[in-house]
């Protein structure tokens, strides 16, 4: 067992951060929807029902996407990640730009749909990357960790090298 701290954030820390972010984004959506519903009730009831459902779903997707992609692109940290002191970085060591952040949101949804199976690679990848990271070319690191840029470069395969860069 090595005493050196691994700079990449593991599955438990990321899960807690994701849970906090899910609660926050849902809270924002619920409060926003309630305010819009209150404002709408003053004008009149919205019909038909499918339109209400569609608007609600669109609002939910928009809120979630804006929340995650916005925070990742601007600071590299969502509030949950900030609380858990982890951040997402691109290959240049900076927060991912907007397009990469949007791809990461898509990857997040794809990782969640099969009962979070998209996060299983975090347990076996040398850089603890999940499906969103593979798609967007990012890694999630502990906020205080020192990380050389060459460590962020894409490697050849999922498990061909260990953390020290030596073939395994």
């Amino acid at each position, binding site marked *: *067992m*090595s005493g*050196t*701290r*691994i*700079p*990449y*954030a*593991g*599955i*438990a*820390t990321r*899960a*807690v951060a994701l849970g906090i972010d899910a609660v926050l984004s849902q809270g924002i959506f619920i409060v926003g929807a309630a305010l819009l519903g209150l404002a709408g009730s003053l004008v009149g009831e919205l019909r038909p029902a499918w339109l209400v459902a569609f608007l609600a779903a669109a609002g939910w997707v928009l809120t979630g996407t804006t929340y995650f992609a916005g925070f990742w692109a601007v600071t590299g940290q969502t509030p949950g990640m900030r*609380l*858990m*002191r982890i951040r997402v970085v691109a290959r240049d060591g900076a927060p991912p730009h907007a397009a990469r952040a949007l791809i990461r949101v898509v990857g997040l949804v794809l990782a969640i749909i099969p009962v979070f199976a998209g996060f299983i690679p975090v*347990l*076996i990848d*040398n850089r*603890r990357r999940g499906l969103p990271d593979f798609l967007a070319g990012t890694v999630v690191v*502990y906020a205080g*960790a020192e*990380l050389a840029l060459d*460590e962020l470069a894409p490697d050849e395969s999922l*498990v061909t090298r*260990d*953390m*020290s860069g030596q073939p*395994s």
Partner: protein
Amino acid sequence: MGLRLGGAAARIALRPARVATRAPVVGPRLRRAVFDLRADGATARIHGRAQLESAVAEVLAAPEVERTLDRMLAGPLTEALGRSLGEHRVVERLAGELVQSGAIEDALTAALEHEDAQRLFESALASPGLERLLATAFESRLVPELTDRLLHSPEMHAVLEYVATSPEVRRVLTEQSSSLADEMVGGLRTRTESLDDAAERTVRGWLRRPRPAAG
């Protein structure tokens, strides 16, 4: 002035006697006689004092004195004495003098530091009587009334207002709250990081892949 004149006259009158004591034949006899006379005088003085003391003690122990004192205290003298003490502020002056001199502080300190006081205090605390007394006091209807009056008093409102608006108190409360939150989040982070490693180690163990050694 009179005393001086009297002393000078006595010295002049005793001068022949002094001359006589220095005379060669009668001098030593006279000096011995003077010495004996002085010793007899001292003995008589001690005797006299002892007799006077026993006489005073006898007088004070007499039932007549006791009855007299009793009549005196039962009479208007006690009230007059009390009035006089009050008018002349004797108690306050005495207390002020004692406080200024530090005698009260010394006495209190000595009393508190005395081991008997410590024992007395401990036995008082351990006594069931005190417990009963306190229980009665707390169960008394006066307690809620007093608490109610205290809570509605302007002084309590002033204290609460001071506490609520005091920047120092608010700073301390903020520091306490933030440090508590920091501690909680720090503990959570430490645990999740341990879980990160444990989960990875377990899965890598199943796959027979070594755990990454370093970042």
